[in-house]
Each structure stands twice: as C-alpha cells, then as structure tokens.
C-alpha cells in the first residue's frame, strides 16, 4: 500500500466510498443531461444555463476534492454521522431551493438540481475541517431545520388525510394557471357589465356564513361568463327568484380540474352556505387533464410547490387575510361602475335579448357544425373520455367542501336540445350516436355516490318550440345559452335549490 493513502476497511469507509460514488453519479448525470440538451436548455434557461454549468462543475470539483482528501486522510476522515447529517442537509436545501426557484416540477430540473447537492455537502464537509468550531454550531442548526421541515410537511399531510379541509387541499398549479389565464380582467366590460375585482362576471362577492340571506356559490366555465348581460345570466335569474345571494365564479375555457381549484381557492374562502358545480356536458367530459399520467407522481408531490403544504398553507392564509381586508374595504366604498348598462339600455343595445332571430353567430355555420359534430362523436358514440376525471374531481370537491353541501348542475349541449341540429349531426356522423349517453352515465354515478344534482336536459327539452321549429335556448352558432336559455336554467336552478335555501333561511 502506498504510504499516505488510506484503505477503506469497515462499514464507515464503505459508506464514504459509496457516498463519493453516488455523488459522482448524481453530478455526472446532471452534467450529461445539461450537455446533451444544451440547445433546448439555452433557450429555456437563457443566461441561467451558464450559471447552472458553473454550479455543476463547482459541485464536481468539490466532490473530487473531498474524495481526494478522504483517500489521503489518516485519522481525520469524515465521521459517518457528519457525512449523513451534511448529506441530509444538502438534500433538504436542494428541496427548499427547488420549491422556491423551480415551478412546475419536471424530472430534468430535479436531475440538474440534484447534481448540485453533492457539491453543497462536500463544501460543508471540507469547511468543517477548516472551521470545526464554527461549523459545528451551523451543522446542528441546519440539521435540526432539515429534520423539522420534512417532518412538519409529513405532519400536515397526515392531518389533511384525517381531517380534509380547504386550507390543506392540494389541487395543483396547472388549473390555477389556466384560471389565471382565462379569467376576465377586473373591471373588464362584457356586454355592458364589468367583471368584479376577481375577474368573475358578477358583483363583488360577500364573505361569511350565517348572514340574513343564504349564500350560494355557482362554479362553472364559459357558461358562467355567459353570452348575455349580467341581469339575464342564469345565476342572476336564480338569485332574484330565491332572494338569496348567488355568487357566480367561472372563466372561459376551464373544466373540472379548474372547478376544484376555484372551489378550494376562491369559493370556500367565501364561506358559502351551499356550492353548485355547473358541469357543461358538451366539453367537461372531454377535457385535457395536464396532470394525468405525468411521470414521477411521488417525486412530484414533494418537489412541485403547489403540492407541498409548507408552501401552500402560508400562501393560502396570507391570501385569505388580504381577501378579508379587501372585501371589507369594498363594502365600505362601493361606487357606481362606469360603463355599466341598466336593463333598458342593455335591451336597446342588444336587441337580440328579446328576439333570438336577431342573434348573430359567434362561429361560422361550418365551424359550428364541425364543433358540434366533434362533441357528438366524442360524447355519444363512445364513453366520454374524461368521465373518470370528472368523477374524481367531484369526489375531491365534496371532500374539500366538508360540511358545506355541494350540488351538481348538468348543462346539456345544444345538440341534445335542438332536434334539427341533432338530425343534421346524425346524418353526418356516419355511426350510431346515443344522444343522452353522457347524462345517462353521469347521473347513474351521481346517484350511486349520493350527489344532489339538477339535470337541465329534460327541462330544456320541455320548452316549446318557436315558429321556426327550434327552441332557441342557445345563442345562434355559439353553443352557450342565450337570454331564453338563461331564463329557463335560472328558474330551474331556483326551483331546485328553493327548499334548501328556505331551510337555510329558517336556520
């Protein structure tokens, strides 16, 4: 054996050897990942790519320096306890840094970040030799924190599993970003009515249960935004008939995963007496779920910030406090909003509100038929693709709502209501279609699971046809309710909720 070199007898030495090899594996893997995808990473990371490269090279150098020193050291080799402590601290620092800096989680980002961990640990181990007294205190403090943070997260998760609550729900960032992208701008005028400060097509929300008037929150997609002025919207119609407050929360282009996000982040903090999830059968059973089948679900649950309660909980509490202050402020200083049309002005501006024959299509006739045909084929010729997802979301929503009753409103597609359109689609489909298939499947499941629901399909079909043979409940070539459709839906919803609202009022 060469003088001055140290052999590795015993488990402690084997552990150090193993740590060195594992460190080289992590850094090598990160370096390879960054170099092999350099062209794309330079676009994605910009100047940060160079920083990453420097960090990984530094990590490799530190690791080699520590390994070199371990090989040469005789009596001052790193103790097993110190190695494990600093190793764990490095992992937790990478975890915290990852949560702070990286969003959303991707396996590649984690590989790159883990390449930095050996460097961090080795820098500390080398430093511990040089400044032993100073770093002993730091080691103790950091190790305590590194034990406490994951422990606290585990505790919160256990608590959330035992006692589900909106504060501890984990709903994912994808839906949040979609809602942010598609909600209206606060104050944005839509058909003569300004979106509220949250970007929803309604008045400013009111928070708190147990007030004089029962409060209901309706969550939905573009049907919540609507194609009619606010006074004609089905939630407004329902609100007036019930003499209760009906908050309307929704955004264009969203689906069940986003409804869950809206429920947890926006509806439940308002402490409503009742929640209604409005499912549009036409597209809510065929949604793109970005979280399904994503790789690494276990790692994702620890490294994606919206899945980590230590990150979610403080942010949620801060938002609630700010929201409470803002709503109180709004209640004190509510001023008339410029640009808002009253009913008479709206009727003059939008004469089609009173006469569906004046409606202009939002889509070309060809695009409208193509869209409806696609929906019919997706929903009525096979099992709707996202039925399972929709069911999972409803179950999660009911869990998150806890004691607050949750009801489901089923909004049919236009082809299920207008017979001429259905006949046209049937001729084009080229295969058998079952017109009510989505409702049949969904209602059987809702009943099995004990959900209260209102199916609008028979109610809309029961509306008399106009002179041209159509019911005219949907805006022309648009797929959303027109004024007539909103009126029917609002009345039906009011009738459906009437008894519950009366019971709430009596309480």
């Amino acid at each position, binding site marked *: 054996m060469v003088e001055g070199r140290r052999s590795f007898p015993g488990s402690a030495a084997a552990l150090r050897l193993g740590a060195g090899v594992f460190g080289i594996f992590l850094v090598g893997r990160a370096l390879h990942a960054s170099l092999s995808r350099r*062209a*794309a990473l330079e676009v994605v990371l910009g100047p940060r790519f160079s920083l990453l490269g420097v960090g990984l090279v530094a990590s490799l150098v530190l690791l080699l320096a520590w390994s070199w020193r371990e090989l040469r050291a005789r009596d001052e080799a790193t103790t097993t306890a110190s190695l494990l402590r600093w190793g764990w601290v490095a992992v937790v620092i990478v975890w915290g840094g990852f949560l702070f800096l990286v969003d959303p989680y991707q*396996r590649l980002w984690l590989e790159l970040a883990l390449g930095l961990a050996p460097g961090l640990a080795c820098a500390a181990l080398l430093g511990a030799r040089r400044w032993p007294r100073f770093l002993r205190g730091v080691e103790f403090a950091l190790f305590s924190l590194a034990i406490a943070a994951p422990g606290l997260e585990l505790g919160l998760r256990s608590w959330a599993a035992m006692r589900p609550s909106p504060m501890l729900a984990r709903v994912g960032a994808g839906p949040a970003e979609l809602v942010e992208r598609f909600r209206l701008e606060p104050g944005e005028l839509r058909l003569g009515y300004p979106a509220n400060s949250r970007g929803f097509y309604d008045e400013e929300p009111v928070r708190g249960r147990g007030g004089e008037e029962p409060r209901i929150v309706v969550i939905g997609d573009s049907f919540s935004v609507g194609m009619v002025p606010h006074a004609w919207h089905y939630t407004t119609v329902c609100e007036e008939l019930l003499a209760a407050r009906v908050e309307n929360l929704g955004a264009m282009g969203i689906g069940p995963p986003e409804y869950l996000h809206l429920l947890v982040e926006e509806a439940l903090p308002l402490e409503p007496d009742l929640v209604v999830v409005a499912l549009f059968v036409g597209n809510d059973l065929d949604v793109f779920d970005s979280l399904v089948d994503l790789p690494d679900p276990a790692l994702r649950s620890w490294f994606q910030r919206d899945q980590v309660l230590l990150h979610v909980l403080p942010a949620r509490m801060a938002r609630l406090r700010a929201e409470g202050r803002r709503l109180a402020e709004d209640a004190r200083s509510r001023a008339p909003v410029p640009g808002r049309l009253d009913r008479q002005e709206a009727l003059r501006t939008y004469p089609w509100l009173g006469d569906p024959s004046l409606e202009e299509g939002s889509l070309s006739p060809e*695009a409208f038929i193509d869209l409806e045909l696609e929906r019919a084929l997706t929903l009525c010729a096979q099992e709707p693709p996202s039925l399972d997802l929709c069911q999972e979301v409803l179950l999660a929503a009911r869990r998150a709502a806890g004691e607050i009753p949750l009801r489901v409103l089923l909004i049919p597609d236009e082809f299920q209501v207008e017979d001429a359109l259905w006949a046209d689609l049937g001729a084009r489909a080229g295969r058998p279609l079952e017109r009510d298939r989505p409702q049949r499947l969904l209602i059987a499941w809702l009943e099995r699971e004990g959900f209260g629901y209102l199916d609008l399909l028979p109610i809309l079909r029961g509306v008399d046809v106009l002179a041209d043979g159509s019911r005219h409940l949907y805006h022309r070539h648009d797929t959303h309710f027109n004024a007539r459709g909103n009126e029917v839906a609002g009345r039906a919803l009011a009738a459906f909720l009437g008894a519950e609202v009366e019971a709430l009022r009596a309480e």
Partner: protein
Amino acid sequence: MFSWRLGSCKVPRGAALFLLVLLLTGCARTDDEWRRDLASEDPFVRALGAIGLGVEAPREAGAAVPELLLTIDRPDLGLEREAAWVLVHVGPHHVPLLLEELVTNPLMSDDRRGAILNALQAAGPAVAPKLVACLRGPGPFLAGELGEVLVALGEPAVPAIASMLDEEEDVRLRLFAAFLLGRLGPLAGSGLPALRRAAESSDPELREAARVAIAAVAGG
C-alpha cells in the same frame, strides 16, 4: 506553461481542452435523438425535444410544429414562451402547417393564434402568396388575422394583395384587398394599377372601396 498540475500529475492543456470539446460535442443530441424525444410519454421531454429540434434544425423541424403548438397552451410545462419563440424560427419553413392549424382549429387560444401569426410574419414576403391562397381557398374567415400579417409585411406583400383585386368569384375578397391596400397607404404604390381597374368595376361597393384606397395610396 502548456500543462496543468493535478496533484502529482501533469495534464497537457491541449489534451484537456480537447477532452472538454469532445465532451461538449459528444454529449449533444442529434436531430434523430430530438425526434425520438418527440415520441416520449413525458410531455416535458416532448416539448423540450420540439424546442431542441427547432433550434438545431428549423428546416427539418416540421414534426416539432404540432408539439410546439401544444406546448404554447400548456402552463403545466412552463415552456409556453419558449415554444412560441421557437415557433417563430421554425414556422417560416413550415407555413402550410401553420395555415392548416389556423384553418382547422377555429377555437384555439389567443396565445397560440398570436404565436402562429408571429411566425407567419417572420416568414417574410415569400409567405404573402400563400396567405392570399389561403384566403381564396379554405380560410376566408381568417381575413382579419391574415390581413394583419399582410399589412405587417408591407410593400413586398402588395403584388399578392393586388392579385386579390382580380378575384372574380368573391367580391368580398376584392373589397378586402382594396381595404388592405388602402391601409398600406403610400407603401402600396405598385398596387395602383389594379386599384384603378377596380375603380372602374361594375360593382358600386368595390368602386367606392377602390376610390378610397387610391386616395390613401396616392394621397399619402
């Protein structure tokens, strides 16, 4: 001087640099490897593959275009802006794909639509006849968007726009061409002969539109 000392070893500097270059080039993905990434089950790997292929070989990156378009609408991947940026570099080589997407997907997001229009504009004057062909053929309902691209292309797009004035089938296209030339103003000088012919048309609406355009073009 020409070597580094590493412990007791001397490492020739040239050899070290050679190894570094070898490492950098040896690790880099080939176009085929980027293409294989496009078939990955992981949507992030697919998106990164599309970006990588788009950067490395924009002319051969037709297979990456659909993935780039999807990535623009996927906030869960966090690569929306990068995908839109790469599309601008890839798109000019794959204009038919972009036009097909515009024609067949009328309900796409504003972000995706904006990225496609940016890519079409980045294609330069050569794209103008293709835009006009699309307006004449499957995409007359895209007049607003494609018209903006044609106007943004400026003077080089004038011959293609002026050719729409000779469209005999669809008077709306002729009106639209006159409108676009008018919007281009003095830049559309080479379109004046076609406008003057249109000003003598039997269609009163077209005559009026052509006269307004001529005034805008000639009057500066």
